[in-house]
């Protein structure tokens, strides 16, 4: 579902109905999934748990010792279930903010603002998609596989990684019924020429009405080129440093090409998911 646009933000004649909540979420678990990534599972009922694939949250990260993250940190919804009220994030422990996040223990709480931004779309005429991701981009793409399954759309996931230890989310994709192809730096299979060959093959086999990517500039450019050439629908989820996450501060802008013109858009508000054809190299 596209994010409700401004026209729908109507002041309630009587009550005010929030569309985004700053939820005080309780940590259910926060465990390492490999040497660099942790999965945090939060109890965050209400609006938060209604997040759709591609939407994100802006997360308050605790101050720990010398690490004093001032801004919140944006994280894609790795899973959100309105039934259980659970929201999950898969994140790479990188700097001050994610180190703070990594310090949270079960029972602790933090504030998560969301759901934010515009998620993925699956046009009706798209019956099979290829998702192509690397690193943390796979966390963003994982829920798309389930969204596709629920709509009867076939999914092939191409998972790129440095080596076998860095492979992420493969079980998630398989559980959603996706076919998974793994390409690695360590055995050379992640080379652009090979990935291009796979994409062309999938397209030739009729398994690629839609292209979706996240997490690598080079993979995005490759998909963009092929999508244009093969006339395939495509979307890309982008990252940019953020402060507000709500379209207010204009710090998260990137350039896009729209009808031949370069225009700047806010990743948090106009995206983070954009038409593949409009994306520019980052």
């Amino acid at each position: 579902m596209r994010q409700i646009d401004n026209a729908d933000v109507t002041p309630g004649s009587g009550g005010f109905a929030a569309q985004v909540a700053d939820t005080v979420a309780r940590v259910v678990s926060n465990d390492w999934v490999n040497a660099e990534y942790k999965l945090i599972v939060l109890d965050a009922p209400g609006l938060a748990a209604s997040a759709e694939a591609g939407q994100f949250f802006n997360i308050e990260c605790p101050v720990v010792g010398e690490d004093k993250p001032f801004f919140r940190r944006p994280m894609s919804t790795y899973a959100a279930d309105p039934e259980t009220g659970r929201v999950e994030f898969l994140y790479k422990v990188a700097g001050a903010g994610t180190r703070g996040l990594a310090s949270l223990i079960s029972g602790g709480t933090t504030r998560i603002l969301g759901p934010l931004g515009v998620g993925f779309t699956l046009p009706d005429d798209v019956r099979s998609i290829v998702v192509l991701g690397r690193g943390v981009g796979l966390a963003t793409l994982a829920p798309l596989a389930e969204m596709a399954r629920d709509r009867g759309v076939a999914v092939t996931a191409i998972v790129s990684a440095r080596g076998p230890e860095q492979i992420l989310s493969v079980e998630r994709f398989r559980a959603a019924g996706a076919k998974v192809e793994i390409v690695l730096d360590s055995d050379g299979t992640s080379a652009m020429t090979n990935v291009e060959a796979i994409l062309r093959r999938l397209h030739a086999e009729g398994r690629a009405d839609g292209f979706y990517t996240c997490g690598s500039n080079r993979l995005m450019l490759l998909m963009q080129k092929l999508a244009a050439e093969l006339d395939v629908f495509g979307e890309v989820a982008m990252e940019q440093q953020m402060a507000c996450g709500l379209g207010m501060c204009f710090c998260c802008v990137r350039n896009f090409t729209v009808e031949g013109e370069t225009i700047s858009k806010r990743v948090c508000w106009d995206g983070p998911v954009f038409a593949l054809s409009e994306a520019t190299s980052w």
Partner: protein
Amino acid sequence: MVDLKVDMGRGLVLANPVMPASGTFAEGLAKVVDLNGLGALVTKTITAELRGGNPTPRVAEVGNGMLNSIGIPSKGIDQFLDEALPFYRRFSSPLIVSISAPTVDDFGRAAARLNVEGIAGIEANISCPNIEEDGKAFAMRPQTTEQAVSAMRKVTDLPLWAKLTPNTGDIASVARAAEAAGADGLVVANTILAMTIDIETMRPTLGNVMGGLSGPAVKPIALRMTYQCARAVDIPVIGCGGIASAEDAVEFLLAGARAVQVGTATFTRPGTMDEVIAGITEYCRRKGFNAVAELGAALNADMLAPDVMEAAQ
């Protein structure tokens, strides 16, 4: 019952003294917070001309604060009147439109275009470069402040606030110049010019080298300037800089501000303004004030002259 109303002059009475700071508020907040509960709405600064912004990275976090070089990307006044204004009209809170311009005449022309249904007042961001004066901001000096404010006063009967820059050495004189030129209120103040360097890359953290500092780090400086301005002029002063809690807001009101603006704090806690309104109410109740307007006269201090600019050392 604590009376939260504040009279900003020229017929503008706000339901409460809390509003967003320009550039830290946009339509998106309506998804989280009931905008009808705010004392006023203040737009991001717009300009008559189309403007891009500055290069990225445009923000950095610094200990307890934010450094930004967003600039004033603007789609122009036409687009504002056509697209944004109808959106804001749906709310009951008075709308204050922040404008900026590169010359005195352009300030006048921009202000003249805002005599439009649904606009309750103008906030003139005169902390921006005056291209006729080598790019020095209007609010750096009393004279250029006076010129810009006069040009707007001539063309509008709307409440007109001048937003001052903390980068001047003489804010009390600038405040008096704005008042003399007919401003109905002063917003004190904009961001403080600052810089950080990434010692690993050996580059300035911002694409623009320098940027504006905001957030808790600047609060004691903004509070001092608010106090100086409130003592220098008779028109209302709107305190702004680092307010992140009701306690912070009360400090500004005690220093003489009639109202306050919340900026950066809304980025880290979007509900801050609601909390500030509730907390001010509770403070007044606890301290026995019947009206928030009484706080302006409640400070116990041997008042210093507003021009005291001498650091303690």
